[in-house]
């Protein structure tokens, strides 16, 4: 059972690797952005593991990274191949992204202290 799961994961991974260059450029940019923010979050976690102080700033920093990463996942609205979102313009997704990011940053700035 584990072996088959392992093989399925492998196959999945392979499929992803081969299909990825086919995605349009702007989607790639967004993916890159998500990767960047996740990395920053990981860096902060590592710092916190070493130092442990101040906690509220850490929370605020990590939340900002994760939050913006999640919002960037609004990219599903941009992908033309998704059936549900065909009628919506890509720009609308972008506006959603910008506004939600602004609110998120206000909150984390307050919490940063």
């Amino acid at each position, binding site marked *: 059972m584990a072996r088959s799961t392992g093989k399925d994961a492998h196959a999945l991974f392979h499929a992803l690797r081969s299909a990825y260059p086919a995605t349009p450029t702007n989607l790639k940019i967004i993916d890159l952005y998500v*990767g960047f923010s996740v990395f920053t979050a990981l860096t902060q976690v*590592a710092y916190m593991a070493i*130092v442990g102080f101040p906690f509220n700033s850490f929370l605020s920093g990590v939340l900002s990274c994760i939050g913006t990463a999640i919002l960037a996942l609004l990219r599903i609205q941009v992908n033309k191949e998704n059936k549900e979102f065909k009628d919506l313009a890509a720009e609308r997704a972008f*506006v959603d992204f910008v506004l939600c990011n602004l609110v998120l940053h206000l909150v984390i700035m307050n919490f940063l202290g």
Partner: protein
Amino acid sequence: MGRGNLGGGFALLILVVSSIYQAAAIFHPISDSHRSAALDLFTPVHHGSFSSSLEEAYEALRTFEILGIIENKPDVGAATCHTVSETFRSTSSTSKDLYHASKVNSILKCDVDSKVFEGVVSRLQAAVSDAGSLLDFYYSIGSLVLIKDRTSKEDLHLVDAEGVFHSIKALSQSDGRWRYSSNNPESSTSAAGFALEALAGVVSLASSEIDQSMIGTTKSDILKLFDSIEKYDDGAFYFDEKVVDASDHQGPLSTTSSVVRGVMAFAAVASGSLNLPGDKILGLAKFFLGIGIPGDAKDFFNQVNSLACLESNRVSVPLILSLPATVLSLTKKTPLEVRVNTVLGSNAPPLSVNLVRASNSGSKGASIIENQELKFDPENAVYILDVLPKGVDVGKYVFVFEVVLHDSELKKVYVTGGQTQVPIFVTGVIKIDNAEVAVLDSDLGNIEIQKKLDLAGENAVSLSANHLEKLRLSFQLTTPLGHAFKPHQAILKLIHETKVEHIFMVGSSGKQFEIVLDFLGLIEKFFYFSGKYDMQLIVGDAVMENSFLQALGNVELDLPEPPEKAPRPPLPVDPYSRYGPKAEISHIFRSPEKRPAKELSLAFLGLTFLPFIGFLVGLLRLGANLKNFPTSAVPATFAILFQLGIAAVLLLYALFWLKLDLFTTLRTLGFLGAFLMFVGHRTLSHLAATSAKLKSA
């Protein structure tokens, strides 16, 4: 017969109770202690002059002049006169400076050139006609009056006296107070004093008589002002400002002295009499005298100057009844002495002092004396009652005196205050006799041992008792007149060898004082300590001249053994440690949190930027470009504005973190957000339109 007596007694009771409304108090006129205090308080700052301020120099000189000690300070004259002539000569002196200079000049009588005076007079006349506020009038008119007196220029007159009178009067309020200027709506009681003094100056400087109706209205203003007078319980009357402005609050002393100066100055120049009630004038005198000796130079000046105004004024001169000693001793047979003086201590006109009533503070209503006249001793100027009446025993009394002027015409000039109540203490030697201490058998009360005590001399009785017996101490206290006496303190103290003390109060019935200590009930209180107890008797009172603390001897007590859980006496507290400094408390502050090493933090800062760089690199590799950026003018502007808008919001957030608070941030964010929405909508709709065109095309 009985009913008549009852009615008379009742009436007397009512009279006494109603007269107790005015509390008994003593006021003393100015005396030598005032003079020596003045010499200490007003010392020249440096040799030759009293500080650089002419106002303070004037206050010092006037105080010495009133107290009659100005001859003691001859060396201040030269330097102060120099300052005075400088002030007169200088063209930049304000009318306030000229006022203080003329005040000093009137006391020191400096040698000033008459031409200088002429220049000053013309400047002051101009100041009067230009005056805008009350104080401008006050200073310039005051200076003119003083200069006129000094130079005795009979032809120095105010240019338009009636007009000036009107202008000052215009600032008065309906309740008798005055405003400082027409711009200032607040009225003040001190301002009323200044205004009345200025009006008095106008009247004396007028070439022709001022209209009597105006003087009449000013007199009624004074009466209205006196309606707002306030009172202390001891009979002192004073003025205080209605509005309490913490920064500028003058205090009742300066307010009252300002009013007294003004009223007396006006009364001196106004024809006809000012119908002020005499008891209020007496009350004002009592207020100033009740202060005692002030510690502040300005307060001292205000007190002494106001008393000088009251000393010889045209309304009514207060006469103060004072007693040099209020404690009379029956053993020494001290005579009762009463003085009647003016406020500054001068002699009063011929009068007689009657002791109307003397009543014991304890038993209300019973009066011992009826109308005894005091003998006058012209050498010392005192009224003496040589022999106290027979009914006066030790205790606290209230004596009621009445001052009667011989010449009834003088009743209009002087005010004596009717009946004055004075508290008097009468002390004497209390007789103690029949003192004895006994040990009694508990059950039947039989006396086992009995010893007589001589409480006037030494005693060293030695008794012994066990816990089944009682100790009894008894004695009798009698006043010189043979009445029962209850002292403030009648205490029996038992002190053990270990210095543990026990205190008992001695009860009384009539003249007999007795205490019985039942040792059976006191075993626990004595902590089961057997052994020798020293006995001490303390009897004391304020009116008892022979209060004593006597050692009576000792008693050997035999108490049973203490059980396991016997109470221990409290440990003797070292008096020095009890009232001395306590141990120092070292505060434990929350230790500041451990901060990481600076280098580590900086390293991680660098690490945080790494993903960002990675992002930029990735962008370049993917070939991200700004191709879709609109090139034509209007959409381009919107696009730029959009980018700028977002940059502005991010900047706002940075500022918010650094120093702004949430509310200003939210406010600004609201504006920016609205702007951003508008611009963004335009840009993005444009972009959407172009891409749609592309798609369809």
